């Protein structure tokens, strides 16, 4: 359901992007996910590949970012494989050419058999961008921290924080961009529940011409 809603939002926003000054970009990402999960004294390490899609619709100041991804994680030894689904909906304010502030929910769900565990955070973020080559290459660092959150199994409040950094460069013409990024996030729940997710991601973007 969530994936359909996100896809519909991206499709609906496309015509708006054609009207200046709105600008839209579509990102497709393949990533390696490494999850280190700990509850009580039990530690688990899982990894796997995830595919995700992202759309960003931006005006002069305001931006909307939608991201959805899913993949399969496999653990070492007898650890049962898990399906991983992630998503986020963020509303952004471009405070300066190098600084964008975001707010909104992001969620992550693991499913193993009939059981699942869901993390939901309401967070604030800051994205800092620096230009390496004007119009061709830039680096970025994004930091986020949750204002509130929840987790299931075991149910309770949760808190989280994370960071992402990387490089974006124009690959072809004015419309195709690439991104190489590293992301690390941590979620904390009651009862010594800790979830750390690392992501090594490569993305390709299509940025329609204005």
């Amino acid at each position: 359901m969530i994936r359909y809603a996100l896809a519909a939002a991206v499709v609906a926003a496309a015509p708006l992007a054609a009207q200046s000054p709105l600008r839209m970009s579509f990102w497709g990402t393949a990533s390696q996910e490494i999850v280190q999960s700990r509850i009580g004294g039990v530690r688990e390490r899982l990894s796997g590949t995830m595919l995700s899609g992202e759309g960003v619709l931006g005006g002069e100041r305001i931006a909307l970012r939608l991201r959805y991804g899913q993949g399969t994680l496999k653990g070492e030894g007898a650890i049962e494989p898990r399906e991983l689904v992630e998503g986020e909906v963020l509303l952004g304010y471009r405070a300066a050419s190098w600084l964008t502030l975001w707010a909104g929910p992001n969620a992550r769900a693991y499913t193993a058999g009939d059981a699942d565990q869901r993390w939901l955070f309401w967070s604030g973020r800051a994205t800092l961008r620096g230009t390496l080559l004007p119009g061709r290459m830039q680096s970025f660092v994004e930091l986020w921290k949750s204002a509130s959150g929840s987790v299931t199994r075991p149910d309770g409040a949760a808190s989280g924080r994370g960071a992402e950094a990387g490089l974006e460069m124009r690959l072809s013409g004015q419309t195709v961009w690439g991104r190489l990024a590293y992301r690390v996030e941590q979620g904390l729940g009651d009862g010594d529940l800790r979830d750390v997710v690392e992501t090594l991601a490569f993305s390709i973007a299509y940025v329609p011409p204005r």
Partner: protein
Amino acid sequence: MTRFVIVLTVALVTFAAPLRAQSADDLLAQGIRAYQQQEYPGGAWLLRRALSMQGSAALSPAETARALMYLAATELSRNQRDSAVAAAQRLQALDSHYRPDERIFGPPVVALFQDAQRSAPARSGGAGAPVATAAPRGNTIAIRPVGGGDTAFRPGAGAFLLRITTPAPAEVSATLTGPDGRAIRTLFAGPVRDSIDLRWNGLDIAGNVPAPGRYLVTVSPVGRDRRAGWSLRLPLEVTRTAVDTLALPPPPADSLYRAERGTYGRAWRSLVPGVLAGAAIVVLPGIIANGEDASSARLIIGGTVTVAGLAAFLSQRPGRTISANSAHNRNLQERWRRDVADITRRNAERLRQSQLVIRAGAPTYSPSEAP
């Protein structure tokens, strides 16, 4: 029998004229008789023939007026209203006080004459519909714009209409000349029997819209009539309706151009974001998730970002040409030139859509103009 007599008379006049000159008075009398006998085609021919006589055989002014009156009535009777109006207007030009005899001519003829009086232009060439007369002894050739007043039309789509009327068949040319005296177009060249309408579509011979200014239509005899040596000139004041054109875009502001050669400041500003982002990738796991073993693969990404920063620094070091910025600046210039060309084209299109406004002045007649 009567029809036979008329046809015979016409035939005799046609073929015997070179052998025995027939007076204009005789032709006028025969034309009047033909009208009375309702032999209108032959009557019109006879009356025109009478009006065309020159020299000592020509009609007197009073007879010319009478001939034109009967010619108008004859043409109206055979449903040639335009020709009838032309004859009546010619009569008005000859004698503005002339009135048809209501005992002779029926109400349609009188009404035609009144219409012609109402629509007849001032003889001296008023602002609305000027008429010039030419040729001595009561014969007149006239030129006037059809419709009168200012004429506005879109060049190439509409037309400015001029009517030349002549009392007798003549071979003439009508030429439009520009403010500099050069010929813009030949509007007409050929024989005129009674009257002819000339059209000017507002374009010169190359299809361009001429510049506003004072133009001149010159009508003069050609061919076998060259020896007559007169000319009739009608000045035209040509203007254009106002057109809203788009302003051309200003050249790109200097602030939009990028430096095409590297500087220290620019080089450092490229290095710092790359190194900081690379360093962040290395140290962030320790800050965000302290105590966990972070993936060493992140070092590859962090190193890549740092190397990218270094490469950017080197590519923009002082004195080095920055090809990307040169390309950006070229694009900026080319886009501006395209915009200018596009707006220039659109403005030209708007100008083509504008209207020419033509106001005819008072025509003048020069009897001694060399052919």
